[in-house]
């Protein structure tokens, strides 16, 4: 009966803690780099120069911002609910950090290989919604509360397309283990079989990360900054860090699930250095797309946002799941999936274009009309 209980094994804890601390360092550096890069890339899109005064090429801009944020006064409104208000930064940040456990950075280097990695990732990272609502509710500010509710409505709506698109890739790959999924792409990356799932994933990820054009919860011109209006100083920067860490994690996930992670499709075993380069390039593509969309799209209205999730993305991703099942069960050639996926992308573009160019005239609110008549 004296079998070894792993819970008391100090080595396991130390190994995990060391890896998590390394990830923490990486996450902080990458988040600061992303903030700098976003400003630079957006500046290029706007034909500006961007940050250039702080350090060579403005590289120290994020460091300066971080120092400023640490040194700022951290206020809590008198009316705010103390528990909810104080807990919200933890509730937003910790779930995002939990996602790093399963992310395969390079071969044989990640915190833990979980067999249900994708399920774990979506389950853990979606807990962030609780933090957003808590921040909105706890601040005792009407705009913050509306922002919190909007973010909840948006996050739960786009959760479904995100989960279903990842799942449809899981069906084709035959596994939900992220490591096995990456290794299965040593010949052909999954995006070839699932182009539409990648599109749906990209759109849903934009919405989950609250990036433009889905930044309704934090829209400055509508809800003056959303749930975080009353936060200042270091607590606000925790939300900010969480946002960019979320983008980092989502880009690596997209690279691993759709683009093949650290595998090079044209054969040959790669050294660790090249794997880092590959993962970096693949996630940079995703991040650049996010910046590009931000530079070129206006913000959606909330009815467009919810309608797009429920009427277009959810049915399409369900169809994709069933189609994958049919092709795999009856052993059809996988090329069918590519063709139908591309057709699905065309359909997605067509329906989006139709919605944009022929907006439905919304009937006037009858209550308002009778009020005007009387």
């Amino acid at each position, binding site marked *: 009966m004296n079998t*070894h209980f*792993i819970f008391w094994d100090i080595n396991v804890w130390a190994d*995990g803690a060391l890896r998590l601390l390394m990830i923490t360092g990486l996450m902080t550096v990458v988040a600061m780099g992303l903030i700098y890069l976003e400003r630079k890339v957006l500046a290029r899109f706007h034909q500006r120069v961007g940050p250039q005064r702080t350090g060579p090429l403005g590289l120290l801009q994020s460091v300066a911002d971080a120092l400023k944020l640490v040194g700022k*006064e951290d206020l809590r409104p008198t009316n705010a609910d103390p528990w909810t208000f104080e807990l919200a930064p933890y509730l937003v940040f910790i779930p995002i950090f939990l996602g790093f456990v399963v992310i395969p950075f390079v071969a044989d280097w990640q915190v833990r290989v979980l067999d249900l990695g994708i399920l774990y990732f979506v389950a853990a990272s979606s807990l962030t919604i609780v933090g957003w609502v808590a921040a909105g509710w706890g601040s005792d500010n009407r705009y913050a509360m509306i922002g919190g509710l909007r973010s909840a409505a948006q996050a739960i709506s786009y959760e479904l397309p995100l989960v279903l698109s990842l799942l449809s890739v899981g069906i084709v790959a035959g596994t939900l283990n992220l490591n096995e999924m990456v290794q299965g792409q040593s010949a052909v990356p999954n995006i070839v079989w699932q182009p539409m799932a990648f599109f749906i994933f990209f759109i849903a990820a934009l919405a989950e990360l609250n990036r433009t054009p889905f930044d309704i919860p934090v829209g400055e011109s509508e809800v003056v900054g959303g749930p975080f209006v009353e936060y200042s100083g270091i607590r606000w920067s925790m939300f900010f860090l969480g946002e960019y860490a979320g983008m980092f994690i989502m880009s690596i996930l997209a690279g691993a699930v759709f683009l093949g992670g650290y595998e090079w499709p044209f054969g040959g075993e790669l050294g660790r250095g090249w794997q880092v380069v590959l993962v970096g390039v693949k996630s940079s593509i995703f991040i650049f797309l996010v910046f590009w969309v931000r530079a070129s799209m206006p913000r959606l209205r909330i009815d467009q946002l919810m309608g797009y999730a429920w009427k277009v993305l*959810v049915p399409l991703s369900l169809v994709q799941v069933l189609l994958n*099942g049919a092709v795999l069960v009856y052993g059809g050639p996988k090329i069918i999936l590519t063709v139908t996926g591309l057709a699905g992308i065309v359909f997605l573009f067509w329906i989006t274009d139709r919605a944009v160019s022929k907006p439905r005239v919304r009937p006037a*609110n009858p209550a308002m009309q009778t009020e005007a008549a009387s």
Partner: protein
Amino acid sequence: MEQANALFSNYLAVILATIVGFFLVVSALVGSRLLAPFSKEREKGTTYECGMLPIRRASTNVGVRFYLYAILFVIFDVEAVFIFPWALSFLAIGPQAYWLMVAFIAILGLGLGYAWKKGALQWH
């Protein structure tokens, strides 16, 4: 003991990540506590830090449409949870498992169509 070991060897990292994430936020807050100025001025505690007092608390009634979307979300998220184990095992079971899932999704699709027809998906 074997099962407990398997469970913990997988999810010990998750517990650990929770702890590390918690201490990350705590250390940032402590760092700010040490570096940032703090004042006890009363007006700083008002909404927007501007001194104008808002009328009533912010926690007012919430539109019912949020509730509708929440119900729809619960239904479809449970559905997604059902699809997860199916996705890994339907190939081993064969075509009938596939057609069962088709029926399941069709029923939910009918539900979505009904909600659509009823205007529950229209934000107004």
